[in-house]
């Protein structure tokens, strides 16, 4: 039972480097996103801004337990921390938000949709749930090529996305194929403004794991060490042949749905509850208390990341924006017959 799993957790076996990686990614993502938010408010961002504030522990714990160059990580809307932990360069982010043509999507698609599919980072489409089967297919390909050994494919969804047919079909298919897929469900209690009780009727989304025949794990998403532990283990299980794993994290987003939204539909009592704890602030305390990092180290990281973020923003801001005259306007790579 997942509750037991969680309760019995002793954290002594947590790998120090892994925890520090998770934390650093959380910190860097928070700093980056704070910058994006102020750039948005200053009207400097092209398109919308959707933050992962409050969800960094979950996302970074996942990203840091994946191996760039081998694993697959289909980041979603609130995964800046996971992207950072996985190794996505800051410039990929700032270039996309700031409309540089040098970004990975060349201005053709934006922001949270960015990806580098050939490097294990599929580029999400907006339609929720749709990436689950794509990651499944990438894993199927690895199997067919005989390259699945030790590989994990992971993606994150929200509570709302669990209501999509695509999520259902995707996770069921992965279960049938017993693929090393890890799906993190970040239950932040709301899908945009819609609360859990208008989204599903089960007691806990974790109850769905058994219905798909996949491993199920529950975690307090506000607790960095718990996330590192539970998500790290889920990834390990998948990597070692345990089949698909589903992790349900309980938490709250500490921002609006997007930066255009004030999130005023979230009741104050909920914000003030355990769910509303800031995984980063809380994480700082834990990191220090449990000896994973010192106050000084954290301060230094903060300074360094602030500079890195500044540099990435500054560079992207100087770069050219896309020019329609240079754009080749081709939706097919092959153009059989020479066009439409």
């Amino acid at each position, binding site marked *: 039972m997942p509750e037991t799993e969680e309760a019995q957790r002793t954290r002594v076996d947590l790998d120090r480097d892994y925890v520090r990686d998770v934390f650093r990614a959380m910190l860097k993502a928070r700093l980056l996103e704070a910058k994006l938010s102020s750039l948005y408010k200053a009207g400097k961002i092209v398109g919308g801004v959707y933050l992962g504030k409050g969800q960094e522990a979950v996302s970074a714990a996942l990203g840091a337990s994946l191996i760039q160059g081998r694993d697959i990580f289909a980041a979603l809307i609130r995964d800046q921390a996971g992207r950072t932990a996985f190794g996505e360069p800051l410039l990929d982010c700032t270039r996309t938000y700031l409309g540089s043509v040098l970004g990975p999507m060349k201005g*053709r698609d934006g922001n949270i949709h960015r990806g580098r599919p050939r490097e294990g980072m599929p580029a999400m489409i907006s*339609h929720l749930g749709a990436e689950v089967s794509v990651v499944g297919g990438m894993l199927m390909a690895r199997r067919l090529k005989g390259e699945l050994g030790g590989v994990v494919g992971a993606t994150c969804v929200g509570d709302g996305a669990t*209501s*999509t047919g695509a999520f259902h079909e995707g996770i069921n298919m992965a279960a049938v194929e017993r693929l090393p897929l890890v799906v993190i469900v970040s239950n932040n209690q709301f899908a945009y403004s819609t609360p859990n009780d208008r*989204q599903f009727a089960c007691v806990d989304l974790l109850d769905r794991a058994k219905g798909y025949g996949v491993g199920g794990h529950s975690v307090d998403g506000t607790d960095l060490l718990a996330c590192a532990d539970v998500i790290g283990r889920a990834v390990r299980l998948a990597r070692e042949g345990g089949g698909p794993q589903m992790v349900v994290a309980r938490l709250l987003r500490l921002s609006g749905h997007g930066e255009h939204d004030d999130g005023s539909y979230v009741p104050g009592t909920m914000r003030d509850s355990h769910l509303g704890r800031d995984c980063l602030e809380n994480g700082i305390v834990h990191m220090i208390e449990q000896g994973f990092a010192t106050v000084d180290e954290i301060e230094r990281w903060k300074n360094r990341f602030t500079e890195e973020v500044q540099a990435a923003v500054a560079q992207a801001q100087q770069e050219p924006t896309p020019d329609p005259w240079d754009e080749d306007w081709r939706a097919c790579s092959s153009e059989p017959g020479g066009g439409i």
Partner: protein
Amino acid sequence: MSVTYIDAIRDAQETLLREDPRVFLYGQDISKFGGAFKATKGLAEAFPGRVLDSPISEDAMIGMAVGAAIEGMRPIVEMQFADFSSIAFNQIVNQAATHYYRTGVPVPLTVRLPSGGTPGSGPFHSQSMEAIYAHYPGLVVVTPATVADAYHMLIESVRLDDPVIYCEHKFLYRWLKAPRINGDGLPIGKARITRPGKHATVVAYSAMVHEAVRAAERLKDEGGWEIEVVDLRSVKPLDIDTVLASIARTGRLLALGEAFPWGGVTAEVVARVCAEGFHLLDAPPRRLNSRDTPVPYHPKLWAAHRPTPESICLALRELLSF
């Protein structure tokens, strides 16, 4: 005081809820939150139990609406963006559209699709899907371009006994204003001469009507050209008579749309005009659509992807010089 296009949509829903107990609204975040675009603001409070938040389940949203319509209700379903109706595609084209033909029981439901491009919205929040739905027998597809049409056509859509795909253009939401909602009494299925002219006819719909008018004004200033602009208002049914009457006056046709270039409304317009009014044409009919790529995210690419007054003028100049 003035009324915006989105106000008109909201007000129409208020009128419908007030006047017809069979009407209810279903969609993501439309209840207390008032919808992503605030098209249902205040309605949940005014009509308790009749404005319902749905899970993120577009397929089930339409299936639900079909069931409710069978039972005599008049659901209005809001898709958060037209683009997400791709998930509901099966229920729309196979369940809703076929129901009357198969069973004799009409299913009066209205699907609101926030459609069309806006800067920075990218490939999945910008689509125009009218041609996709118009292809299927059994659906009515409307594309209001004015504040008054946004209001009156929504009312009429819900009153029709058949499933209606109501394409509302996001670019017009707050930009388009009118002093008040004054309709001209045209029913769905009738096109409107938005601007009279005599040298060429631009057939457009939705936001492109306004771009056409802008282009027409430029050509007026530039060379005294008088361009007639026809607003189709609904793309299925498509009022070919009004279009033909216009071409009978002008002899020249530019079919203009914001959707992708293969197929679509412009192809249907040109094909019908040529079949029924070939002799009226003094020049080859032209089409202007978006480019043949997904809608790009960066505003500079976006502006070059869709027709603009510049590209419309270019097409018209070529048409006029034939």
